[in-house]
């Protein structure tokens, strides 16, 4: 079962495109999606995810959503703390860099989430519409906690204003939250007219996008050697811990097999857009070579290839245990 899922995931077009991107880097090709196209596609994905979530949300009740929301917030607060502590055991990073990495793992990754949606739905499970809300909610608290942890090691106070503004008005939150509201207001009938664009093309666009992500992640690979064994171990195992936590919280707060698996992926994934920007502004002392290598070079490919099917399988097992 888990194996079948793993294979199904591996031969899905988005994951194969990611592998092609990695390969392109290994072959020293200078293939890249133009910056403007990458930005355009990323706006498309964020807005589209938001809108579809909003349409689904318009059919959810507040009662359904309350518990998962609280659970997600809890994840956002706890995961970076666990990450920080574990990094203390596994690596020799100083407090600033530990906090920086923790901020990334406390936040989440849109593309990993999206790839999870594709696998979960193509496995026949439905996913609660409000998971997109959870995605938006999970983006921020982890970053704040990570920065707080780092600030203890810092000889100065953090410029919170700029960092928080950066995340809140950054395109991730703005488009996700804006899309949610847009979808909620326009509802199913309004969505119908834009479905061929935001719905029909979605997996195809994601495939193209992951080609570029493979290239970007591939360019981080040489840094892995420099990163040291401890950081690599962290990047590979921590998602299993935080992912398991996420799946468990999902089931405990009443989500279905699919939704819980997706929450697990949200929890397991590390941010490589919103968090780096905020951390770079608030913690210039932290090294991008460390936090981006971990989140983008190690954890992102791991989750895409192994983490997602594993967490879905785990969610099935837990469901089977009668939760």
């Amino acid at each position: 079962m888990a194996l079948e899922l793993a294979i199904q995931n591996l031969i899905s077009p988005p994951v194969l495109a990611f592998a092609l991107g990695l390969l392109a880097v290994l072959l020293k090709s200078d293939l890249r999606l133009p910056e403007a196209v990458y930005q355009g596609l990323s706006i498309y994905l964020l807005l589209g995810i938001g809108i579809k979530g909003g349409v689904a949300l318009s059919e959810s009740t507040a009662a359904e959503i309350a518990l998962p929301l609280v659970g997600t917030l809890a994840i956002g607060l706890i995961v970076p703390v666990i990450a920080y502590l574990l990094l203390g055991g596994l690596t020799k990073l100083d407090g600033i860099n530990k906090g920086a990495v923790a901020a990334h793992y406390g936040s989440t990754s849109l593309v990993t989430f999206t790839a999870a949606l594709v696998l979960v739905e193509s496995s026949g499970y439905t996913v609660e519409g409000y998971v997109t809300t959870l995605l938006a909610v999970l983006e921020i608290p982890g970053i704040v906690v990570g920065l707080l942890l780092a600030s203890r090691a810092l000889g100065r106070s953090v410029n919170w204003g700029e960092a928080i503004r950066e995340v809140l008005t950054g395109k991730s939150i703005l488009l996700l939250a804006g899309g949610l509201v847009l979808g909620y207001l326009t509802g199913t009938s309004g969505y119908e007219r834009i479905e061929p664009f935001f719905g029909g093309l979605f997996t195809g666009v994601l495939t193209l996008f992951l080609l570029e992500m493979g290239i970007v992640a591939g360019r981080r690979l040489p840094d892995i050697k420099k990163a040291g064994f401890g950081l690599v171990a962290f990047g590979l195992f921590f998602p299993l811990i935080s992912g398991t936590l996420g799946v468990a919280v999902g089931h405990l707060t009443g989500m279905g097999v699919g939704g819980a698996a997706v929450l697990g992926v949200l929890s397991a994934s590390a941010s490589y857009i919103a968090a780096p920007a905020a951390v770079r502004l608030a913690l210039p002392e932290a090294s991008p070579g460390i936090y981006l290598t971990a989140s983008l070079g190690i954890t992102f490919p791991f989750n895409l290839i192994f983490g997602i099917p594993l967490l879905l399988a785990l969610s099935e097992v837990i469901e089977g245990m009668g939760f």
Partner: protein
Amino acid sequence: MILKQRKLLTIVSEVTIENRLLKDLERLGAKGYTVSAAHGKGPRDQRTGDLEGGNIRIETVVSNEVLEQILEVLEQNYFPHYACTTWVSQVEVVRDERY
């Protein structure tokens, strides 16, 4: 035509801090600036922004005094942590009240 002397400061930095940098330039007395997109390589090579589009290249024509001030702030707040390559050249301008 009478040309007046000014300094042209070129700054190549990472995209993430564009806004902060431009705000600092304005605050320190630059009356204008021009920004274009760039990529590159340098001795430090520690940047974010790989995903968000490489480097930015800022040019600002300023007086000697403003230049001094900007360079000091760059040295204090930017050079230690950020990718931030800068060079200064002597230029001549026509309408000197603008710079």
